[in-house]
């Protein structure tokens, strides 16, 4: 580590510092919580900031080294190249294993600083333990970076140039965005994990603590959602097979924590409002982070054959040990400390004396969330077991099998439909109780809308039974969610004599959390809508074409104008040109290409897409023999594909709305105002 150039040395120092801070801070945090010592806590906070600063600093230093082509640094020698454009040079920070672990650490630093700052002096029963667990996780990653995965190791003799990052990563600008989004999602799950562990360690769980836990789950969850959709877009726009999701083990790895995270966000609401489902919610929250670790392991260890797998590396076994430790730790915490939470709750009850008693009826939001959670649990199990099945069978029977799309699609469809249906039922039902006829009365208009939507699309040609059912359920859920805003707005209009605009604005501002939830639901509905129609009505055909020849496909006239070689600094490409016309008028020129990199045998295909709100016309080259005067092109028509991509910003927007800080309103109550506002749940502003 020492004895290299200045960057290597400084990098090594920063990484060691981060390990030091993490270790010291972890211990300080624990004792600060155990002894309830404010001085120790302040030191723990400083250590946390120290860890963040050194980790983030190390990341910035690496980027500096990459840009300056400092090939004396090992990672730069692995992925740097003088011929790589600047944009991709920066992006190569996460192009390869060691850099991506460093990047993991950097994002962990950001989140650690964030939660330390946000907790500040509030929630003092929990906060020290949060830092303790968070820095405990940091120890592991700092250790990895400092030892096995050290990207700063010096290289001697210093090579004049490097091979450049993996060509697949240079093919599209999305590669700059998809991994950071995913990392912000994955790494961020450590925070709610730490908070839940803190609760168990402290032996208490007040409703006032669930609110920040839920917020800190929503933040990484939104990034994870966007990251997953971006991954689908990358698959679609870059890989050339015209699909967005292949149930690849690594894709699934990102999906597991999303599933449990979504379930958590909903069951946490039941916990907050009704005090129920506590252990299940805590389990979900912890599992989300644990699944993130398992997912990172599956991606990095080379155990699975995948487009993401780096070659089998040394970090695999270490990672596995860490997973084992964290799994066992979580299990032990839950089993041995959960009863403490019961005691604390009982204590609170005893102090309160008289309580109101209300029972939950079948037709209540709690029931809907319960069913939804059951479905999410089944979904997680399905995807997880499907991903691990080939390993299990190989271990037990020595056979090699594959579990692919037919299996996953078969189960994802009914479970997914059930979840979408509940997405409509849930908002429709109030908390607590509802009687059957009222519930049905609210359901009928939603069902009618669903029939309308399904019928409308069926009339337009989308008549398969699966898509009809999906569109019905989607329409039903859409109406149910929209109604939750429009209905109270309409009521306000009559009671307060406000215009629609004002009424809507007031309702949205007051019910920010709920409205954000609805917007996020709309995002999911958009994705489901797009998936149902693209999968069900995709039309694909291979056309051998000569230069100048026109073919007809789905109402379009497509003329092949030949192919030619194009030189770029880091690759050469064979670009085929197609003119697209409809009803005689030219509507676009598409240039799918085959990219040739020095280090790859098979070319990397970049498709081109003609995108409209009602469908995509997708061009992918199969082959271009010899002189470019003929080609075989695969044309795919995917109806309503863009809605899948649009779901990402919609979900993100919904989360943003949920999380937007409220202006603190002057409470109308008398004596309770000051302590009531200090960090506890205040009326109407529950987050």
């Amino acid at each position, binding site marked *: 580590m020492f004895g290299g150039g200045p960057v290597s040395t400084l990098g090594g120092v920063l990484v060691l510092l981060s390990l030091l801070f993490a270790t010291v801070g972890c211990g300080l945090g624990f004792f600060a919580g155990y002894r309830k010592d404010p001085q120790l806590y302040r030191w723990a906070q400083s250590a946390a900031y120290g860890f963040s600063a050194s980790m983030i600093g190390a990341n910035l230093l690496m980027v500096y080294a990459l840009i300056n082509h400092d090939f004396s640094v090992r990672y730069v020698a692995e992925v740097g190249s003088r011929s790589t454009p600047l944009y991709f040079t920066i992006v190569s920070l996460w192009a390869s294993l060691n850099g991506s672990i460093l990047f993991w650490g950097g994002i962990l630093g950001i989140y650690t600083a964030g939660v330390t700052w946000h907790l500040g002096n509030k929630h003092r029963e929990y906060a020290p333990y949060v830092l303790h667990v968070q820095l405990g996780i940091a120890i592991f990653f700092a250790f990895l970076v400092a030892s096995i995965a050290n990207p700063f190791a010096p290289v001697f003799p210093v090579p004049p140039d490097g091979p450049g990052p993996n060509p697949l990563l240079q093919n599209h600008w999305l590669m700059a965005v998809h991994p950071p989004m995913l990392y912000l999602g994955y790494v961020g799950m450590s925070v709610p994990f730490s908070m839940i562990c803190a609760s168990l360690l402290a032996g208490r769980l007040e409703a006032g603590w669930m609110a920040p836990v839920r917020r800190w789950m929503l933040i990484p969850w939104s990034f994870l959602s966007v990251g997953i959709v971006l991954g689908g877009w990358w698959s679609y726009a870059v890989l050339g*097979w015209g699909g967005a999701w292949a149930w690849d083990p690594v894709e699934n790895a990102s999906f597991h924590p999303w599933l449990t995270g979504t379930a958590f966000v909903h069951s946490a609401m039941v916990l907050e409002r009704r005090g129920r489902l506590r252990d299940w919610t805590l389990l979900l929250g912890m599992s989300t982070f644990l699944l993130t670790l398992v997912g990172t392991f599956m991606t990095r260890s080379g155990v699975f054959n995948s487009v993401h797998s780096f070659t089998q590396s040394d970090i695999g076994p270490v990672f596995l040990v860490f997973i084992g430790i964290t799994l066992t730790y979580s299990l032990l915490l839950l089993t041995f400390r959960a009863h403490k939470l019961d005691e604390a709750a009982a204590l609170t009850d005893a102090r309160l004396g008289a309580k109101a008693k209300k029972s939950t009826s079948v037709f209540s939001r709690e029931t809907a969330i319960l069913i939804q959670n059951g479905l999410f649990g089944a979904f997680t199990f399905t995807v997880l077991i499907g991903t691990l099945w080939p390993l299990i069978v190989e271990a037990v029977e020595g056979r090699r099998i*594959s579990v692919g799309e037919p*299996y996953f699609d078969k189960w994802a469809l009914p479970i997914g439909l059930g979840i979408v249906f509940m997405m409509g039922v849930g908002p429709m039902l109030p908390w607590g109780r509802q009687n059957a006829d009222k519930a049905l009365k609210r359901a009928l208009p939603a069902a009618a809308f669903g029939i309308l939507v399904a019928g409308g699309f069926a009339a337009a040609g989308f008549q398969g039974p699966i898509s009809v059912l999906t569109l019905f359920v989607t329409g039903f859920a859409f109406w149910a969610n929209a109604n939750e805003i429009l209905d109270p707005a309409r009521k306000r209009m009559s009671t307060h004599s406000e215009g629609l605009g004002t009424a809507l604005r007031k309702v949205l501002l007051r019910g920010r959390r709920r409205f954000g939830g609805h917007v996020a639901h709309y995002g999911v509905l958009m994705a489901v809508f797009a998936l149902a129609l693209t999968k069900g009505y995709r039309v694909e055909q291979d056309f051998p074409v000569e230069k100048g020849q026109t073919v007809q496909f789905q109402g379009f006239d497509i003329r092949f104008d030949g192919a030619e070689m194009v030189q770029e600094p880091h690759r050469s490409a064979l670009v085929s040109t197609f003119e697209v016309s409809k009803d005689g008028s030219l509507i676009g020129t598409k240039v799918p290409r085959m990219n040739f990199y020095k280090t790859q045998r098979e070319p990397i295909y970049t498709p081109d897409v003609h995108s409209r709100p009602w469908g995509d016309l997708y061009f992918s080259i199969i082959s271009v023999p010899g002189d470019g005067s003929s080609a075989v092109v695969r044309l795919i028509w995917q109806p309503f594909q863009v809605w899948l991509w649009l779901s990402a910003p919609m979900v993100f927007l919904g989360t943003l709305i949920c999380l937007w800080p409220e202006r603190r309103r002057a409470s109308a109550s008398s004596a309770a105002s000051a302590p009531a506002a200090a960090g506890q749940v205040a009326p109407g502003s529950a987050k």
Partner: protein
Amino acid sequence: MTTLLLLALTAFGAGQKDYVPVDAETIERAEIPGVPPGPPPPAGQVDAIAHEISDKLRCPVCQGLSVADSNASTAVNMNNHVRALVAKGYTEADIREFFIDTYGEWIVLDPEPQGLDMFIWLGPGLVAGLGIIWAVSTVVQWRKEPDDELPSQRGDAPLDPFEQQLLAQLDAEIESDRPTGST
């Protein structure tokens, strides 16, 4: 520039497969050894049937993509081969059996529902069923035991004076737990 072009042409020519249309001769030569073909399917349906089959075959050189989806040379060749076999009159079962016999079980993306793999076929359904049972039994339990509606759990509803007093009491208790000298 010319040398580069020539180099590139040979390079990409070396890597990928010239598209061979599935013509009469190819169909004639396609066969599954030891298995007689049935009657050929109607002309327009060959592609659709072949696509169904290819969708469930795994591309051997890809990461779990199906032969229908992948545009790797191997996948394109396999696709053509499947199409030729279908056009010749082989059934889906024959073709699937042929590929499993030749490559191994891993060539199909949906394992046969036998033996250990039955778990994959039934497992998720079982778990979903268990999930529903859990949900139902929990609701039944909730209906039986009314829960305590603690004021801090009421979410959006405004507190009445009694509840505000309770909340203040709770907060005071929590305050007293804090070590002295802190915020």
